[in-house]
């Protein structure tokens, strides 16, 4: 027998094409794992160590699928032994036998003392080969659990499987490798503790690390989004022209340049989010009807995302009143709320009438002749909302996309806006700090960025 590692070793075992690699890919967030419905892609064991600070505390193993379960069971039943002795005898007998390479390979982690997770797709009927596989695992008698991985939503055979599992496993858990989110991954790790009690501290450490890491990612993403919004809100692009006939051309170029710069930064942000959530190798495609496929400045984007006209007007009115109150306080109350009322009226009116304006162009006469076209900073209150909505939508898609799922499935595309569904006080604060960031100098910028960062974190947390 080979040396047993000091950390928990867990082999993921099952019939070919049941989703073992998908489960591993989702659980470890590794999109380099070959996930394919062509069986035989996994010909050798692949080890997935969970390393914290350079120390391996848990190791998962992807294994090839059983190829000869009924033949093996027949042979094992004739041996009259069980447990490690049976395992050793099996390997001695079949190690050099053609056609049994995968079966021998999948047993290797068990030789090293691995516990096992048996993965099955319970949307299909229970077959004699499945019974044979489960019986083999029972005879080898390693700590084990079963994972029900529904490849389809079909639950016709679930009862048959449950019956069979009860005969062979103490711990059974559902896990959809194509849809599992972070919470489901953690729940699965929690279940691993039940396989072997002595592994609980190591698995707890892994869970804590995964939780901390997840929280860190979320905060990193919020920081990145705040930086992106700051850039976009303060951006202005200028272009000069001397001949009036070239004004339209200059205007178009300035607007295109402005929009391109923001779109490029957005792509940079998206790339950063993908990196944060380890979607780096597989080219994740967005769902067909995702508004993220649309250009940032397209009318569809501005129609689907951002606040409704009513929400925008209410939030802008609140924001304007808030700013006015500051001025009222500065006058020691002598203005009797005049600034608050004026602020509310002005901001609300602007939002109502200019909420749909994508980009505004200003003209400035130059002292030595000629005119300068200036695009930005964008004063439209809807502007930061649309930008943030898109960023949050993308973040949601990426953070919740299971690594074992190699398609662009998106569960609900009916209402893609995130910000339309958050509390109106958050909408108001968003407009307030976005407005302040547009206006503030470097001294105040930091403070307002910090505030906006908190608002975005609250939106994500809400």
């Amino acid at each position: 027998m080979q040396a047993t590692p000091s950390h928990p070793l867990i082999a993921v075992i099952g019939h070919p094409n049941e989703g073992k690699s998908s489960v591993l890919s989702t659980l470890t967030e590794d999109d380099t794992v070959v996930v394919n419905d062509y069986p035989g892609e996994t010909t050798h064991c692949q080890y997935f160590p969970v390393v914290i600070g350079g120390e391996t505390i848990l190791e998962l193993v992807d294994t090839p699928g059983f190829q000869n379960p009924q033949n093996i069971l027949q042979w094992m039943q004739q041996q009259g032994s069980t447990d490690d002795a049976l395992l050793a005898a099996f390997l001695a007998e079949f190690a050099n036998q053609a056609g049994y390479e995968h079966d021998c390979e999948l047993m290797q982690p068990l030789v090293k003392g691995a516990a096992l997770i048996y993965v099955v797709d319970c949307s299909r009927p229970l077959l004699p080969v499945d019974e044979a596989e489960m019986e083999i695992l029972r005879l080898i008698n390693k700590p084990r659990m079963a994972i029900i991985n529904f490849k389809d939503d079909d639950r016709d055979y679930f009862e048959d499987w449950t019956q069979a599992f009860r005969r062979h496993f103490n711990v059974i858990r559902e896990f959809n490798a194509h849809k599992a989110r972070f919470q489901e991954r953690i729940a699965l790790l929690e279940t691993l503790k039940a396989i072997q009690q002595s592994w609980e501290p190591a698995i707890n450490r892994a869970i804590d690390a995964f939780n901390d890491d997840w929280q860190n990612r979320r905060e990193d993403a919020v920081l990145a989004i705040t930086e992106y919004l700051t850039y976009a809100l303060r951006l202005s692009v200028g272009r000069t022209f001397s001949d009036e006939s070239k004004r339209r051309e200059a205007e178009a170029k300035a607007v295109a340049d402005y929009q391109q710069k923001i779109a490029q930064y957005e792509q940079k942000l998206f790339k950063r989010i993908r990196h944060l959530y380890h979607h780096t190798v597989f080219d994740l495609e967005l769902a067909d009807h995702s508004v993220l496929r649309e250009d940032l400045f397209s009318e569809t984007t501005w129609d689907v995302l951002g606040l409704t006209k009513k929400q925008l007007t209410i939030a802008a009115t609140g924001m304007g009143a808030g700013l006015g109150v500051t001025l009222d306080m500065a006058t020691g109350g002598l203005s009797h709320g005049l600034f608050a009322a004026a602020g509310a009226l002005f901001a609300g009116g602007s939002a109502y009438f200019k909420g749909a304006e994508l980009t505004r162009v200003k003209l400035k006469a130059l002292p030595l002749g000629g005119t300068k076209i200036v695009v930005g900073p964008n004063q439209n209150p809807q502007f930061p909302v649309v930008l943030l909505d898109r960023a949050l939508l993308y973040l949601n898609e990426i953070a919740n996309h299971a690594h074992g799922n190699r398609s662009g499935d998106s569960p609900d595309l009916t209402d893609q806006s995130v910000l339309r569904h958050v509390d109106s006080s958050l909408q108001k604060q968003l407009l307030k700090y976005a407005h302040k960031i547009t206006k503030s100098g470097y001294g105040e910028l930091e403070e307002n960025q910090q505030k906006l960062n908190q608002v975005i974190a609250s939106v994500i947390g809400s």
Partner: protein
Amino acid sequence: MKKPVGPRWTLSHLLQFEQYLKLDEQTDSAAQAQRDRSVFQRLPANQHTRPRAYLAWLAQRVNQSPLAVDAGALFNRAYGGTLWMLLLIGFFMGAAMSYGALYYDGTVPVNVAIFLALLVLPQLLMLVLLVLSVLLSLLAGRWFSAWYRPAAKLMQTLLAASWRRLVARPGGAQQDQQQLQQELLQQTLGLHGPLFANRALRLFQVVGVAFNLGALACFVLLLAVTDRAFGWQSSLTDSPALVEQIVSGLAWPWREWLGAGVGYPSLAQIEQSRIVLAAQSSIPQAAAWWPFLLLCVVFYGLLPRIAVYLFAALREHWLLSRLSFDTFHYQELWRRMQSIQLHSFGHASPHTAEASTVHTPITAQQTISANAYVLQDTLARYRQADLIHWLPFASSEQQLLIIDAFSDIAPAAGKPIYVVVEGWQPPIEEVLLALVDAAKRAAEQHSDLHILLLGKPGKVGNKPISPRMAEVWRKKLDLHQQANILVHADSAQGSES
């Protein structure tokens, strides 16, 4: 040779720090996290504060990745050069002004009122304005916070000019550094404006100190090598008592120490040193004034400048020691430092999937011309009537031959063999071997083995097999290179053969 980073924050460190942060924006964040985490972990626990950790981080960056254009070193060089230049300018300006105020041609004595108006009162006024502005900014910082901006802007201009010169030099850094330089300076001054304004304040005091030293040096030199007469004269007053009051007031700092007659002229000396043109040719107390004038420059010019310089130097030290780096701008680095090193990716496997170079021969779709074999176990999941109906090439008269295992298939000479197989799952080796074995036996009878793949059974109806799964079967069979096997599928798209 790069200067190592010292144990305390300095202005040049801040610039270097910003420069490295700026560079990090363009590199891979995972590698940065690894690097920054290791810096943090190497620090003793009592140094796990942002200023300490960031300084250690900066020291490592300076050691490991020296900058092509080091903004910190550039700042020190620009500041040093400017300092010496201002020292010289201030000294010569002071000397020149002192020489002018002490002009004496032997006829009219040096008018102390002019000397005071030129060399003392403006400095006194500037000192009062400085104290007022500092007090106002302390009392109502938010409203008067802008007072330091011109000074900070001056530092920015100074540094930008030095940077431009360096970049323009042959062998200097690339032109694209210009953009970086602009952003870097704006950002650093935006974040640490008061610190840089304070440094500008120190610079101004150096000019003041040099000016007063120049004035004093010239004064002392003239006194040493020439005989100067001093007197007073004014159109506003001719009262020696009033002049004595003013003089005594001005001499307040040293009045008790040196007293009347030495530290400042006494009433009698003032009376006797009044310049009355054409009335007298000589002034009896012409020498009584110079100690007073000298001390005025020292106390109202030199010493306040030195005091403000020391105040600014201490304030800089204080501000640097109170840097918390807890604003939004510095969060990302802190987060990277405190991140956990978690890695759960799989070791890359050197193994590749199995593949065949030979493809199973494919024949055209054909009608079932004999009875079809089916496993007993399969019939437990499919209804026979459904199966017949479902097989696209079968006629209703045909029967299914029920067998327990594929080894029960009995080939007949020249007749094709049809086997109904559940094809909704990929084939495993023991199934393939059994089918290949049957195919070999059929080959001996010059027959072909037709595998009819069935889709997944369901409680309410069967699902057609996916073209992809049919392809999997074909590929798996390819590996066995049995030429008389043909594959058919029940997919909606028709035969998959």
